[in-house]
């Protein structure tokens, strides 16, 4: 075993279980049993910063210290992978731009308003990708367009607001979108007119009562987020999404995710290059009653 693993406090199985459940209760993320050593390694830095000697004490801090709630946020930030990039899963984005946006344009003629929610947006690459696609479609000029990103981590939201990215964020971006970025000393920054379309919120996806701050939306992107959630949390979040979507609104999940065993309230729509979920036009206002719990 490398020396690194032997330095610093060790997490006992019962401590792992307590911490895992605490994080799960807080934000719905479920760490599998084989994450024990990963958790130990990743959280050691937090223990050092707080001058806490062992994981039992850290658990106590999270539960009872006045700063405990903020510290759970930091712990989740450390434990989860925030890594994302622009134009991730491009085939899905293409479907969104070519097939979904025209539908939303047609449907929104009267209100001239478009709202897209990037749920669990991390450092904001997906938010700006969606805003660029909307701008590129040329369908919504003069409309009230909002792309809202949320995350549980204040740190990643600050990065998202700065909108400046290094090379790794551009690894999947087609060349023709370069014009939406300007060079800056720290990297490439999203152009101001694109940033102007985007807003961010510090929101725990499990706190569905607070979803109302997002307002009603036409489409939700929640890709590769729910895979970390347990089933109950997933159901709760999907229920919240359903409430936020306009009838006929779309839900985009990651390519390996589905609503199987989670919800039957959405209908599956076959696009030319992807499958997406849609809230039925004649939607039942509360289809989840009795289903989620």
């Amino acid at each position, binding site marked *: 075993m490398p020396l690194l693993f032997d330095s610093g406090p060790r997490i006992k199985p019962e401590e792992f279980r307590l911490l895992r459940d605490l994080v799960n209760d807080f934000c719905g993320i479920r760490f599998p049993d084989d994450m024990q050593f990963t958790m130990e390694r990743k959280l050691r830095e937090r223990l050092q910063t707080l001058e806490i000697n062992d994981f039992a004490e850290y658990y106590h801090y999270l539960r009872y210290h006045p700063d405990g709630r903020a510290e759970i946020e930091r712990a989740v930030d450390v434990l989860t992978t925030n890594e994302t990039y622009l134009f991730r899963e491009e085939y899905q984005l293409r479907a969104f731009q070519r097939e979904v946006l025209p539908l939303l344009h047609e449907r929104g003629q009267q209100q001239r*308003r478009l709202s897209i929610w990037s749920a669990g947006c991390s450092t904001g690459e997906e938010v700006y990708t969606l805003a660029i696609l909307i701008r590129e479609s040329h369908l919504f000029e003069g409309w009230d367009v909002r792309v809202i990103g*949320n995350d549980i981590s*204040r740190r990643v939201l*600050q990065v998202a607001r700065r909108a400046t990215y290094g090379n790794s964020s551009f690894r999947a971006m087609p060349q023709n979108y370069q014009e939406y970025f300007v060079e800056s000393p720290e990297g490439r920054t999203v152009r101001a007119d694109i940033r102007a379309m985007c*807003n961010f919120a510090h929101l725990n996806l499990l706190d569905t009562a607070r979803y109302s701050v997002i307002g009603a939306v036409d489409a939700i992107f929640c890709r590769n987020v729910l895979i970390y959630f347990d089933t109950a949390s997933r159901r709760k979040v999907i229920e919240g999404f359903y409430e936020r979507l306009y009838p006929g609104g779309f839900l985009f999940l990651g390519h390996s995710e589905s609503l199987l065993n989670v919800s039957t309230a959405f209908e599956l729509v076959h696009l030319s290059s992807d499958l997406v979920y849609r809230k039925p036009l004649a939607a039942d206002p509360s289809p989840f009653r009795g289903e989620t719990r």
Partner: protein
Amino acid sequence: MNGDQFRKALQDGDPEVRRRAVVAAGASLGRDFGPPLMQALGDADWRVRKEAVQLANRCAVELGIVDDLVLAICQGDNVGLRNAALDVLEELGQAAAPALIAALPTAPEHARKFVVEALGESGGERVVEELAKAALSDDANVAGEAIEALARIGGPAAEAAIRGRLTASDAFLRLAALDALNRRDAFISWEELKPLLDDRLLRRVALTALGRTGHVEALDPLLEALEESTLHTVGVAASALTRLLGSSSEIAQAAEARLSELSERARTWLRAVLASGQDADARRAAAELLARARDVEALASIVNQLAHEAPSAPVIEALRGWGLSGVDPMLTLLSRLDSAEERAVALELAADLALVHGTPTEDVRTRVKGALRRSLLDSEHAVVAAAARCLVLWADEEDADMLVGHAMSAEPAIARAAARALETIAERSPDSVERALAGTSFDGLQGAVLAPVIAKIGGPHAIDRLQALMSADDAEVRRAALHGLGRVGGERAAGLVALALADEDNEVQIVAAQVLGRLRDENGDAPGVSGLVNAVGSEFAHVRAAVARALGQTGSLRAVDTLCEMLGDEDSGVAMAAVEALGQISPGELAQSLKGALHHHDPEVVKAALRALANGHDPAAPSELIQALSHPAWDVRQLSAELLASLCVVEAEPALRAALARETDDLAREALEHALTAVAGGA
């Protein structure tokens, strides 16, 4: 240590041994320590006396040596003992008064002065009476000392006694009395002062008192005094004169013509005072009088004073009296000044003078505008900021481009002033500001400066721009954008503000709550209630408190249930905010709503709830207040009694009596007694 040991130790030839003996005596005080302590007070060494004074200050009464101390100040053989005893008697204050009063008639002539001096530190009605008698003493030293002592004690009786000596045959006593009344800032009538003005010795001191007469006749001698040939007298007269002018508009009016005709000699003296190192009050007074006299020659000095010292409102008001006639001299001065601060003041004054009596002529307007525009290009920030501030009133469409440039300044004072000026233009001509802003980047803190301008321009672009500012990474910009959205209003703005309740910055959340509390739709309803209700779960108490206050501001009954739940918040600040909010909404059954607060663990929350009930004249207020008379916290019981008194709840009388019978706290008892009187009066 006992008395004998103490006495013996004081015989030692080494002063340090004697000093230590006094210190040791303080640690084991005995009844027989009085005589040796008196001996120590008269010791030849000052260190021993100093230690003895400190000990005597603590225990003179206890040791029964007050009479000995009085005797000590009446003797003349040991000056050290006399001074030490005087120090102790002065420190004893009221406790020494009876012995001092008793000694006054029989004290030797040379010692009466000291008895009186010590009495001056005592105070009390009886002492004032004795000092008043002493002030009539034939011994001028004693009488003078008594006047001094009365001045230190103060109060109507003391002042009356002093005033009686304004007519003393001895000029020095008259001077002492006049000076004492000046130090008390006591009113002396014109009639009392008039005869004193002819006395060369009293004249200067009498001039100061003239300022307090509030009598128009006092103008003449004060104006005459401005021509006297000493800087100090002119300074005193100037201060008194400005005080007199400030006492009534009639006197100020009467003085106006006189001041405009002020002699060159008086002007010269006043300019000299203004330029001198005299006290600030005299210089400010000189500046005010010269401004009232419209003395162009003094303008540079006045501007200098305003620029480098705390600006004086009367001086500025006096300058504003110049109106349009002051614009040219001020602009001329502006062109000659080197100091940036002085240029800034001159510019602001010129711009203000031109508008003070309404719309200026086109000619004046052109000259002032020219100066303002030139100053916008000044190399000094202070001048540019002053120009931008003036343009809030002076700017027109043509200035928009230049002001947008200044709103981008890194200097906050310039940027803010320019933005305010742009707001003014936007009020009249939003399109011109819109054009000037075209192509402007709102990145960085400039966004925060321009947010109010954007809101003032209004229209759909305003929301787009403010939405863009909401994505800024600087929280200050987002806060400014929220205020802007609050001013623009409408459904879309409300949605953006609600989203900011989930901002990662707490201060932004608080501003979002405040704005949502204020927002109203076209029907007058608050669209922010549901957003606010969802934000009460914040982990931060100050955010929850802000949300509670904002809910109160909505005035919506939909907020009541949430606010009632917030009364149980573990953080008292949140519970307090909820109480205040419920008081603001005043739901039908306020007492029922406030139940949670009336049983809160923090007495301050309970008090806030009781106040809300009483202020709202809730029908349940009397019974809740009566119940609160038994609250464990004394301050809650005290407040309950006070509120029952203010509401005059007659039926509370038996409960108040019962509460008084069991009350042990002094302040609560006092409130209960007062409440009983009030209630009985009401009945």
